[in-house]
């Protein structure tokens, strides 16, 4: 029997090495450590709790089932966020094809499903939900972030919510460094403009 592992204090690289040796506790610690950041990023990208849960789950399954392919020269979290972001972007693309609108996703049958999936990028209508959200700055920021175009949204979330460096974001999104900087600056200006009335 392998000795019980106190994984909570280990760095990611050591946890990954243990996971590569088939240690179940290491897998669970990696999930525990990143489930909230990954879910937060994906949720803020797709704005649908159920879809975000599925995408976050898919992210971890993809990463952990390919853990032996992980290369230690990159940060584990960068790899994880890259896959999470790609899945979220793909989901948004599919959803756009499915004509997502303020009426909810095409597959939404019940009122609850319609409400859960009601979301549109660039929708600037002042509905009751927006008015309510604007009363709280945090909620207003969430709404404003949701209205950014997907790549701006990824950049701003990775930079200011997850605290990634510009270089890391460029590597993660496969974009030139200059483009990432431009996107983040533009995203900040769009957000400030959107939030001008609420501050």
């Amino acid at each position, binding site marked *: *029997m*392998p000795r019980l592992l106190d994984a909570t204090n280990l760095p990611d690289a050591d946890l990954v090495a243990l996971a*590569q*040796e*088939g240690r*179940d506790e290491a*897998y*669970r610690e990696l*999930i*525990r450590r990143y*489930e*909230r*950041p990954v*879910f*937060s990023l994906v*949720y*803020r990208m797709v704005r649908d709790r159920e879809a*975000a*849960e599925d995408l*976050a*789950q898919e992210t*971890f*399954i993809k990463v*952990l*089932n390919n853990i*032996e392919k992980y290369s230690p020269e990159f940060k584990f979290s960068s790899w994880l966020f890259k896959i999470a972001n790609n899945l979220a972007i793909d989901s948004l693309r599919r959803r756009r094809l499915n004509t997502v609108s303020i009426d909810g996703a095409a597959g939404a049958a019940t009122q609850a499903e319609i409400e859960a999936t009601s979301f549109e990028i660039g929708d600037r209508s002042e509905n009751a939900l927006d008015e309510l959200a604007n009363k709280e*700055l*945090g909620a207003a*920021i*969430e709404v404003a*972030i949701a209205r950014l175009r997907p790549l701006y949204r990824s950049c*701003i979330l990775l930079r*200011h*919510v997850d*605290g990634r460096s*510009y270089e890391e974001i460029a590597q993660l999104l496969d974009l030139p460094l200059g483009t990432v900087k431009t996107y983040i*600056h533009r995203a*900040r*200006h769009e*957000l*400030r403009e959107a*939030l001008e009335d609420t*501050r």
Partner: protein
Amino acid sequence: MTLTRHLLPDELDLLLDGETGFGVQQLTAHLRDCADCRDELAALRAFVWDIETLPELTPNLGFADRVMHEVHVFEPWHVAIRTSVAGWMPASPALRIAAGTAMTSAATLVTGAAVWGWAHRDATVFVGGLVTERAREGLFASLTATAQTLVGPLGSTLGSGLPLLAVAGATLLTGAGLGFLGLRAVAARARRNEA
């Protein structure tokens, strides 16, 4: 030389990001003299702080279990061997030392015997041949006895030799086959119960 105009949004972004490259000194110098730009940068910092302090969101309970249900935890063979060996190791240090000593002694004996055998190759080959011959005879005798017990009068009729060995071999193979099928059925049932 300081700037005679207010800072542009991109220039404020440079300061916000803590850039230190070419031209930034000029911007910081302007900031020292311009209260409006200082206020603007402070507002930008406060705005970024608001984004950075957005709360983390939590997935539904049991998220890790749902993920782990779909993850195939794979233990490489070298780790499996290491784990098995570690499992045989005694827990107490005294017993570990005793086991280590016993294993070292056994390894030394085996090595010594191997070296002696190599140094006396002729004798080793002779003794080895003798032992093999005896073992073969013993095995044949025991197989014949087993076959006679199992087959009885038929064995006597057929007499000793090849037919008897063939019958014994077939019996052995049938037994092994049935045993294998039985084990497989038990394993399949265990898997079904687990599922």
